[in-house]
Every structure is written in C-alpha cells, then in structure tokens.
C-alpha cells in the first residue's frame, strides 16, 4: 500500500516535470492572452483574418505555387507594435511564362495594367498585405514581416511547418 503510494508519487513527479517541459499553464495563459488581446486591440476578428488570408493566397498564387492550406497569417506583438506575420510555404517558384500568363489573364480581365514585374512576389505580398490591413483597420501600425522562402528546395515544406510551430511555442 505504502509502496504503491510512493510509486504513484514518483511517477506523478516525473509526469509533472514532463508536462512542464512542453507548456505550463502559465505559458498557455500568456500565449492565449497575447492572441486575444491583439484581436481586441485591432478589431481584426478571426473571420476578417481568414478573409485576409484567403485573399493573400489568391494574390500570391499568381507568382508562386504554394501550399494554400499551410499559409499562415498571424498577429504578433513586437514590443509596442503589432506585427502581421505571414508564413508562406512555397512548393515551387513559377517560371517566367507562367507568371506572365497569369498576369496577362488578369490584366485582360480587369483592363488595368499596373505592373508587370516578374519577380515582384515579395514586394507585392507586402504591399497587398498592407493594403488589406489599412482597409480593415486604420489604427494598426502595420508592419509586415514576411518569412517566405523562394528557392525551390524540397526541404521547403517541412522547414516552414517547423517555423510555424516555433512561433506558436514562443
């Protein structure tokens, strides 16, 4: 009886330390609070974020082939500033012809030719995200950081998912 008790205590002790290694209740609370406060402060509801995410996928797909479901868009606190963090898992960079074709098709559709740059994917993403931001909420000090990788390596995908996990753990 006493032995069983002791055994339980020892096991319990190790379990506890194990749990603490992953995430303590305090860390969970802090992380959840940071997210919810950022939403409160910016008026960007989860629905709006999802809409922004979808529109970004649509826009960026013209330039790169990517894992559409894995594109992550998060609000993060950076000191006093709120930052929009965009993580884009690139499967393959599109070649010139593909990009041109996509752009031309769009130009025809809209009949507005603004830009035809071939490798503007980053600038474009930034500009687009900032625009979005302004539309949805003018109070945000927008500050877009992009963590996309444009090279064509096979490691791209796992790399990016790791990155996403890292962020969540922080």
């Amino acid at each position, binding site marked *: 009886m006493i032995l069983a008790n002791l055994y339980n205590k020892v096991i319990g*002790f190790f379990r506890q330390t194990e749990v603490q290694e992953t995430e303590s*209740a*305090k*860390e969970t*609370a802090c992380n959840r609070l940071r997210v919810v*406060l950022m939403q409160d*402060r910016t008026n960007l509801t989860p629905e709006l974020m999802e809409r922004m995410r979808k529109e970004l996928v649509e826009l960026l797909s013209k330039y790169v082939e990517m894992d559409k479901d894995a594109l992550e868009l998060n609000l993060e606190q950076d000191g006093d500033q709120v930052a929009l963090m965009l993580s884009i898992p690139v499967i393959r960079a599109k070649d010139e012809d593909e990009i041109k074709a996509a752009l031309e098709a769009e130009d025809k559709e809209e009949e507005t030719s603004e830009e035809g740059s071939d490798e503007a994917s980053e600038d474009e993403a930034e500009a687009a995200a900032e625009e979005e931001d302004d539309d949805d909420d003018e109070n945000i000090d927008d500050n877009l950081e992009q963590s996309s990788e444009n090279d064509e390596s096979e490691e791209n995908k796992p790399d990016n998912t790791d990155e996403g996990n890292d962020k969540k753990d922080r």
Partner: protein
Amino acid sequence: MSGRVIVITSGKGGVGKTTTNANIGTALARAGKKVVMIDTDLGLRNLDLLLGLENRIVYTIVDVVEERCKLKQALVKDKKNPNLCLLAAAQTRDKSAVTEEQLKDICEKLKKDFDFILVDCPAGIEQGFQNAVAGASEAIVVTTPEMSAVRDADRIIGLLEAKEEIKSYKLLLNRVRPNLIKSNDMMSVDDVVEILSADLIGIIPEDTGIITSTNKGEPIVNDEKSLAGKAYNNVARRIIGEDVPFLNLEEPQGVMAKIKKFFSGLTGKEK
C-alpha cells in the same frame, strides 16, 4: 487644498476594487491624509459594508444630487479615523440617477476639503464606469493574474487612455498566489505587467484575512500582522510619493507554511 481624485476601476467584477478602495483609503487616512471615498456603484453598494459603516448612512450621493441634503451632510465619518469619510451610493436607484457632470461637480467641491478623493467604480464599461471616471484625473486599474481579469483590464486601459482628463493610470495586481506562480501554474507579476505594459503600483497577495476583515467591516490595513495589509499600506505610501520596494512574496510566511514547505520538500512534489 486641492485634492487628488483617483478612480479605482477594473472592468471585471470580483477582482477586489472595493476592497482595494477601502484599504487604500484607510491607509491614506492613517498616514494623516484627509480622505473621502465615493461609492458610485448605484444599486449595488458595498463599500459601506467593508468599512463597517452600513448602519450610519443617512444620505447618499443621490440625495446630494437631488438636493435633499448638503454635500457635507451626506459624508459619513469613519468609526476610528476622523480623517476618513464615505459618500455612499444609493441602494434603491440605478446608474442613471447621477450623471457625469454631477459627479464631476461633486469631485470639484470635495477637492477643496480633502487630500484624496477615491472613487469606487462599478464593474463594466457602461455608463457607471463613464460616470465614475468623469471627475478623476488619476486611475488605479485593479486586476488579478487571471486571463479574464487581465483581458478586461486591457479594455479598461484602452478606455482610460482615450480620456483626456486621466493624466496617469497605474496597475494594482491583486490576489497574487506566489506558490502557484512558482509552480508555473499562474501568470507571474512580470507576465501581467509585460502583457498590459502598464506601471505597477502594488502587488497584493491572496490572503484569507480579507474574508474575515470584510466580515468584521474592518479593513485589513488595520491589522499590522497581515501581509495583504502591509501590501496595501505600501500602495498608499507609493500614492503619497514615497519610494517603497515591492514586498517579497516568495518566502512562505508563518510557521504553518514553513512546516508545509518542509514536508512537501520531503515527498518531492505533492498536490
């Protein structure tokens, strides 16, 4: 004399606004300041209970506003400390019985006779909050290291920042439980301060003595031995302008806590 008007607010209910008000008020009065507390929680008054003055209330703030009595007649003197007064809320009326302008006016008048006017704010961010804040130029935001309280405090801070009349606000962290913080089960003082990025004016430990002191109608600052009482006294001294270090809540207080610590040390980690 031109007194300072400080509103004590929180957003969330039950985090200890009224307890804080009663204790800071009493501590300031004990330090020789002339203090008046205004309960603006119309319909849900409690400050009178915490001070043990519930049987002495003749007129309330609504009587003053509706001119059934003079302002001075409505001020209830504390049992022990002649420096301390209470302007009670009406229990039978709702928040609309007093307007922002009227509260501002009352605060202006009281400034002439008192060093400190502490305004006890109702929970929420509706008209009751707007009224309470109207006459104040400083604020103390009370919160606890719990998610919901911190979130509501963040809302309140946002609203306070938008108010021109509020020149400064400070954070008071209530019901802190050092053992839970130590085991990483509760947000620490630093976590809350960082998340809210606000200046801290006090850290009050969770103290069962608060329950008995409320039951007796005797603020805990009158109890020299109580740790929460000491912490509240320190808050009052910081308000006056003294530079007082924060209490170290890490070490267990009292013999029982030490014995408990000894045993939990033997068995590894209990609980």
